[in-house]
């Protein structure tokens, strides 16, 4: 009897979180299907999309610029010791560009975007749930997915893509500036190394990742926001879950995309 109880407790302890995880993944996939359903053919609110593009994109510019500038700088600071030691100044532009375009840019900006926009989105949707605003929409025969979620998903994908382009440019400028100041790499040398060794594919690689990360942040933040239960505490829990899920999704998809993309 004792052994049976121990096994039952073990399976219950393991099974409950697994079932909870499956429920969340299932919820996200269902949301994905419903969003795609509204996109083909496009049936969503343009005013709401425009409002979200502004709120999520334009208002994120300062933090993205700041993050990108110092990210570019950090690339050079880390490399500066070895650049000086081996005299590898001709590799600084390429190294910074390659790392920023393909990996560090989309990844860091994606995480920053998740922290700023994704968490805000979850909190906003969660508050709308607990204050019955979502019920209010449904009572007015408005599909919350079409009216609220699809515009947010589109806005996040578009804006993370565009912000990554901006971030890449700023990060390279930061790298060039820090390279000149800290590693004695002239701007001309940096530019030659950068322009002769990098290809459009490097930029495209990072931008595809940015769009995918935007989609992941959008889906996770919308899913956890719209399924909030339990008032203010529930909203806090949902924001926490959304940020963790988005970070995990970004890292996992980054791993897969790095393999899959040229």
């Amino acid at each position, binding site marked *: 009897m004792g052994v049976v109880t121990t096994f039952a407790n073990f399976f219950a302890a393991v099974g409950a979180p697994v079932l909870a995880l499956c429920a969340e993944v299932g919820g996200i996939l269902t949301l994905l299907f419903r969003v795609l359903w509204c996109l083909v053919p496009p049936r969503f609110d343009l005013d709401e999309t425009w*409002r979200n593009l502004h709120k999520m994109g334009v208002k994120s510019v300062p933090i993205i610029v700041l993050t990108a500038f110092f990210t570019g700088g950090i690339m050079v600071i880390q490399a500066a010791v070895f650049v000086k030691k081996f005299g590898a100044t001709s590799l600084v532009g390429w190294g910074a560009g390659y790392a920023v375009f393909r990996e560090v840019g989309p990844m860091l900006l994606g995480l920053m975007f998740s922290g700023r926009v994704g968490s805000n989105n979850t909190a906003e949707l969660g*508050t*709308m749930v607990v*204050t*019955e*605003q979502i*019920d*209010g*929409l*449904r*009572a*007015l*025969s*408005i*599909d919350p997915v079409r009216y609220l979620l699809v515009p947010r998903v589109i806005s996040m994908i578009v804006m993370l893509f565009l912000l990554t382009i901006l971030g890449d440019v700023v990060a390279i400028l930061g790298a060039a500036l820090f390279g000149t100041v800290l590693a004695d790499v002239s701007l001309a040398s940096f530019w030659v190394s950068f322009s002769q060794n990098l290809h459009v594919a490097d930029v495209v690689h990072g931008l595809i990742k940015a769009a995918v990360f935007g989609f992941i942040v959008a889906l996770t933040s919308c899913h956890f926001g719209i399924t909030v239960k339990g008032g203010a505490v529930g909203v806090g829990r949902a924001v926490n879950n959304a940020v963790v899920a988005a970070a995990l999704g970004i890292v996992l998809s980054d791993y897969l995309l790095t393999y899959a993309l040229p």
Partner: protein
Amino acid sequence: MIRCDGLGLTLSHRPVLNDLSWELAPGSVWGIIGPPASGKSVLAKTLCGLFTPQQGTLHVDGVEMTRLPEPERVTVRRKMGMLFQNNALFDFLRVWENVAFPLARQDPSLSREALAARAGERLRAVGLAGSEEKWPSELSGGMKKRVGIARATICNAPVLIYDEPTAGLDPVTTSKIYDLLTDLRTRHASTVIAISSDIPALRRFVDHILFLHQGQVRYRGPEAGLEACEDPVVYQFVRGLGEGPL
């Protein structure tokens, strides 16, 4: 106008509505009362089609709602206006946009100017002239209720559902809100369902009472007959007694 037959609804493995039967004639004014968590708000939302009962049938204006797919509920919902317990004002829209929102959805051909004019008219009717450009967060509790009422009534829907229209309001504001609801009801001859914990104020407003306890109907009939009801739960609740089954 509305007829429920044996409605049963379970949420999160808990029965919320249990074999509920009820019929509302057009133009009647009903009050739903009962202890907390007795299923009052859930019933109101079920009538709007926000919850789908697992048992029974719900007819609104002759249309059976429970088996109706979501997209086809639109036509039925357009016959209803609802004030939610938490007002459910959209905090990303200004006051006039909130009020005009159902109208814009019902008639997309209306221009922004026409919508603003109609919303302004309705806001004046609820005593909120000059608040058009404010955000919901800038309003007091009573003002939010009034905006919610303006939004619920702007389409002149034949059925109006008010969930706690005076919750948390002082007696003067409560009286003003019921005067307003009475005025709206007289002008449009709507069927009205009001849920409230303020029993004396509610009883002055309604003709009929539905008493719910644990999702079951314990009294259904004229307001005047409530005192004579011998159900021990109703008896205790209506008289506010400390001793009893509640």
